[in-house]
């Protein structure tokens, strides 16, 4: 008796070779095109609502009830004055410090934004419900400085220690979640003045 001939020899092991080269061509072109057209500049926006000419009636009531600080930052050429509307509850001054940025001229100064940030954290700790900061820059203050003040005022930095009265409990797991908003609503207060 002969053994059945091995089927291995007959069935020539023909591997199906997919021709991937044209597809690869297309993919490489597509990837390079997408990479080139992708925006490299990460753009973000800062929201600032226009001040209301006259507050609505319910807001007047709210103002009378809550007595908000109406915390205002007067940005002057050589200092920033932080005060509430009357200056009786909060009244502070942020001075300028020498600018040590590499592209600055020797006698350039900048606002001490670190001190401003610390001060605002202090004020937020004393008045945890406050969310708004009214900016009143002088006419000649450069835009970049105003943005710098906004940055210092809007959020806690990642490295900041959030005060315990600004932490809320997460309903799901009971962990304390810090509120990272400092004064997120920045409004220009002197748009209407000439």
């Amino acid at each position, binding site marked *: 008796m002969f053994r059945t001939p091995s089927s291995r020899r007959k069935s020539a092991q023909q591997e199906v070779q997919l021709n991937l080269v044209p597809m690869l061509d297309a*993919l*490489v072109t597509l990837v390079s095109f997408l990479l080139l057209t992708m*925006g490299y500049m990460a753009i973000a*926006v800062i929201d600032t609502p226009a001040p209301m000419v006259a507050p609505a009636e319910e807001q007047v009531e709210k103002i009378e009830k809550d007595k908000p600080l109406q915390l205002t930052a007067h940005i002057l050429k050589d200092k920033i004055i932080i005060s509430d509307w009357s200056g009786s509850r909060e009244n502070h001054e942020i001075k300028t410090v020498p600018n040590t940025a590499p592209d600055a001229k020797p006698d350039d100064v900048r606002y001490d934004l670190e001190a401003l940030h610390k001060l605002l954290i202090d004020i937020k700790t004393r008045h945890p419900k406050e969310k708004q900061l009214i900016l009143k820059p002088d006419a*000649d203050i*450069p835009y970049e400085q105003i943005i710098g003040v906004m940055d210092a005022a809007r959020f806690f930095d990642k490295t900041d220690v959030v005060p315990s009265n600004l932490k809320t409990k997460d309903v799901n797991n009971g962990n304390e979640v810090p509120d990272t908003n400092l004064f997120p609503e920045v409004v220009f207060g002197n748009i209407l003045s000439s």
Partner: protein
Amino acid sequence: MRRSIRNRKSRRKVKKDFDLPLTSMMDMLIILLVFLLKSYSSSAIAFTTSNNIQLPNSMAMEAPPDAANLILEPTGLVLDGEKILEFLNPPASVPSPDGGLPIIRAADATYEIEKHQLRDGNRMITPLFDALVKAREKLQFVQSTQTFVNKDNQVTKPPKFNGTLIIHADKTIAYKVLRKVMYTAAAAEYKTFKLITVKKEESAADGVKKGT
């Protein structure tokens, strides 16, 4: 006999073609493609920022919405790609530092506006006001010709005009210019201003390119 063996050997060598393992490369490319397509769609709003202005840096995270774009060029005001006002005494163009097209440096700009184009105690820029009102009315007209349905398929009123204005301005611009622009926009019923900035971490890295 010897010859035939040699022949056979050489024949085999010719037939065996070189196989590049392309599958892993394809895997990688497809993943890259999917990622790029995904990031492409998330920034669908096209942004045309002028080469002449340098945006300020900020730590803000919010992405820009789709709204009217106002660019404060050193030579004039541009609303949604249309120049609506020319400033007096615009600065001359200087050769670009990287050898490209000549640029106009916003740091030299004066942003002077002709007296007759201002009103309301020099607080409002008339051509900008007119253009903003026109843009708002155009949007409201387009909305009035369409029907809006909510998720239950009921016809609803068109969405309220939210009055968002995106402001692109150079970082050296003085607040008084910005204030005029914001006053004008507030008068034209634009209630929210979005100040365009460049994210700080990105700008610190070298090779920042202006996207479109």
